[in-house]
């Protein structure tokens, strides 16, 4: 079975920390960071390698800060 591996790049300065993406992630790959961005918001980030590149987080992100990459391995 072809496996896929995904990853995301987050525009952390535009992330407002609403956590809607965390609710949408099926693999619980993302979580809020301890740090804050220039506006004072906690931003979302990858916490482990389980990302499958399903794009759910990017689709629900109101601010469109997430770019999703996916490759077959």
């Amino acid at each position: 079975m072809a496996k896929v591996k995904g990853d995301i790049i987050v525009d952390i300065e535009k992330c407002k920390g609403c956590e809607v993406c965390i609710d949408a992630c099926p693999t619980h790959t993302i979580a809020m960071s301890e740090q804050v961005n220039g506006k004072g918001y906690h931003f979302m980030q990858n916490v482990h390698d389980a990302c499958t590149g399903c794009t759910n987080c990017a689709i629900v992100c109101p601010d469109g800060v997430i770019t999703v990459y996916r490759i077959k391995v």
Partner: protein
Amino acid sequence: MSDTITKEQIFKPENIVYKKTDLMTDNVLSYCPGCGHGTAHRILMEVIDEMGLQSKTIGIAPVGCSVLAYEFMNVDMQQAAHGRAPALATAIKRLLPDKTVFSYQGDGDLAAIGTAETIHACNRGENFTVIFVNNGIYGMTGGQMAPTTLEGMKSSTSPYGRDPQSMGHPLKMTELVAQLPGTYYVTRQAVHTPAAVRKAKKAIRKAIELQQQKVGMTFVEVVSNCNSGWKMTPVDSNKWMVENMFPFYPLGDIKVDGKLVKEV
């Protein structure tokens, strides 16, 4: 093996499966964290992008939270006076019938001050698309009661909950316009989960496609949250919306191909 994949191998332009459409500008959205407006803007722009209509589209920005929509949508936009977006869209569509015209309105704009314009534009069967974002509250001015506020729902001008005896009943604009002969496609969608966003995008695409066929008004309601107006976190407000808004504002198509598919 997956262990040997490095970040450099993944982060290549050919591996991109999702990125923000170029039709959304790089300006930071002025909306509160978690607001459904951003998602609604983005899926609308994705549809325009996928259909290759950027240079042929004119949008009408309303008054309300999305008053600055022209800052975020990279298509020709015109700002309308409060509630007058359907009147302005009528003028633009009649003068430039080859353009794709949409109005993007909130519930305070479309369902309160602009009720007359909305109903008459729908009744005339003008060939444009209305995107109606309904969050049951006046978000921008500080969470006052809107015509769409639910019974018993608290807002800054109904602090003990909306009492239908003195404040009237919530207004279902979408069911109202579905009964008019001029509307061709009327639907209600939401943008709180990935599945809902995909469905809403399909509905908007269908509406814009039908507009090219000049069949009449296409009307897409997007039930959205207003987490700052409702005084909740974004995730909680989405849950509250599912539990309280959706029973009164059920999702799904109301009128397809000019025929009612749901009792209203």
